[in-house]
């Protein structure tokens, strides 16, 4: 009941603000550019391959177009998601509406869930608009649908993980820019933590490698669903939602 009320209010606020549309437009423009780029390269290679039997067949749309596209989309998401989440709690803290909201007969967890679901819906809308790329490909070619779906599942999972981290940083401050900066920094750090895994080697390397957003997304981009990656993203999302709840509760004490 409470969650639904918050969810509806938040959804209205999200789509009433220009931020949602600007971020979506930028995301679609960039991913559209990458799609065109990868497709042009693929076409070029295909023509070359058809003229030179030595290269052989085996050129695969998933591998040359959609895989790299999904990978790049996840990086654009990393840059854009903090802009979606930054206002969720920081704005309410700043305007003081949080004081009123926290005295309504709604559990803190239900408030957060409502807000989180609203921003996830925004993200899913944005992602749904990119379905035009695989649909275009299907019109001219016949890519396998299951790997594409796997790629989208990966994007949904990595996106919700980003959003939960963004929600958490939004709970830490009343300044939206600070919330977005923290989220961006943390996301980038968790993304590249895999790089130091190669340097560290051994057990530490394995642990670091497992922590990285990047490593767990690779399989999805290739169209492969691995339960260990699923569990990883579920865990990350749950962890940051839990930390957000604790941050809000702690704020009550210090209010």
């Amino acid at each position, binding site marked *: 009941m409470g969650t639904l009320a918050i969810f509806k209010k938040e959804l*209205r606020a999200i789509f009433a603000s220009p931020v949602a549309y600007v971020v979506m437009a930028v995301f679609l423009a960039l991913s559209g550019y990458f799609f065109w780029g990868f497709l042009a390269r693929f076409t070029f290679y295909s023509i070359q391959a058809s003229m030179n039997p030595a290269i052989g067949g085996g050129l695969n749309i998933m591998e040359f177009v959609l895989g790299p596209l999904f990978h790049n989309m996840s990086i654009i998401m990393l840059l854009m998601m903090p802009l979606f989440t930054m206002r969720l709690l920081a704005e309410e803290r700043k305007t*003081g509406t949080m004081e009123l909201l926290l005295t309504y007969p709604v559990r803190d967890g239900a408030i957060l869930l409502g807000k989180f679901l609203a921003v996830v819906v925004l993200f899913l809308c944005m992602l749904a608009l990119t379905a035009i790329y695989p649909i275009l490909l299907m019109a001219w070619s016949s890519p396998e649908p299951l790997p594409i779906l796997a790629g989208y599942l990966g994007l949904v999972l990595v996106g919700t993980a980003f959003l939960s981290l963004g929600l958490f940083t939004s709970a830490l401050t009343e300044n939206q820019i600070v919330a977005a900066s923290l989220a961006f920094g943390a996301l980038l750090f968790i993304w590249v933590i895999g790089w130091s895994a190669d340097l560290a080697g051994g057990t530490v390397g394995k642990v670091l490698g497992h922590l990285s957003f990047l490593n767990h997304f690779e399989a999805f981009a290739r169209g492969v669903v691995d339960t260990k990656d699923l569990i990883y993203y579920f865990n990350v999302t749950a962890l940051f939602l839990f930390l957000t709840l604790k941050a809000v509760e702690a704020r009550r004490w210090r209010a």
Partner: protein
Amino acid sequence: MIEVEGLTKFYGPKAAIEEVSFQVAKGEVVGFLGPNGAGKTTTMRILACFMPPTSGTARLAGFDIGKQSLEVRRRIGYLPESVPLYGDMTVRQYLTFAAEAKGVPRPERSGRVAGVMERCLIADVQERLIRNLSKGYQQRVGLAQALVGNPEVLILDEPTLGLDPKQIIEIRSLIREMRGERTVILSTHILPEVSMVCQRVIIINDGRLVAVDTPENLNLRLQKSSRILLEVEGPAEEVQRTLAGVQGVLAVAPQEPRNGRWRFLVETEREKDLRKDLARAVANSGWGLTELRPVDLTLEDIFIRLVTREEEA
């Protein structure tokens, strides 16, 4: 309806309120009076379950604010001092949201919202964005929001702050109408407001409870002394000494001189009427007595006295 016991809240090493205890009966309108920074907002925030106390307990409608916070929150309507509202929603959208969040069932929702809008005189602006409304309207939207859950207890923090005199009168009469119907606890630092709106006053200063009583009783209780104002033509220091020497006089306080005449506020024991003795003392010394009248203690004086007495102790 409200039972507060030993409420204490520390911000770091500093206590915002200390050992605050009081009770409010069902249907009572109680004023929480104190200077800025006395701990009014802290107390109200704790009662509204926005933040927990460091120690102490409070029960609203029989439910503990710590252990049964949701039950308490179902029964209160709270209006914070800053009147935080969602500026990008219309009045009706906002109140509908508040009603839904407060668990008003769907079939009753629109009727309830229409009811509070009518009651708070905001039906004419229901389709306008809240951020475009005047402060007076926003305050009433805030009050409507507090009422929409049909709460047993209303907690209003400085509900007339920043309003113009006409709006203040409207809000006050709205609150007065709730007498008997809901339990209201409101804070203010404006003294006349309390005697106009409230049946009982809780005076708080520096985080401590100073007095709890009806405005009338406070008047009586503190008028252990009565006060007389004199205006005298004569040498100031000698006049003061002479007045202080009169039997039954407790204190003499010089006031601002007017038209070259000295003015003194003389405090006397309550039961004695010393006006004749004072007049005689002035006349016997050969000075001119141009004014002599008894002064009533206003609630403002009471407030100042209570608060300063507490500081002396």
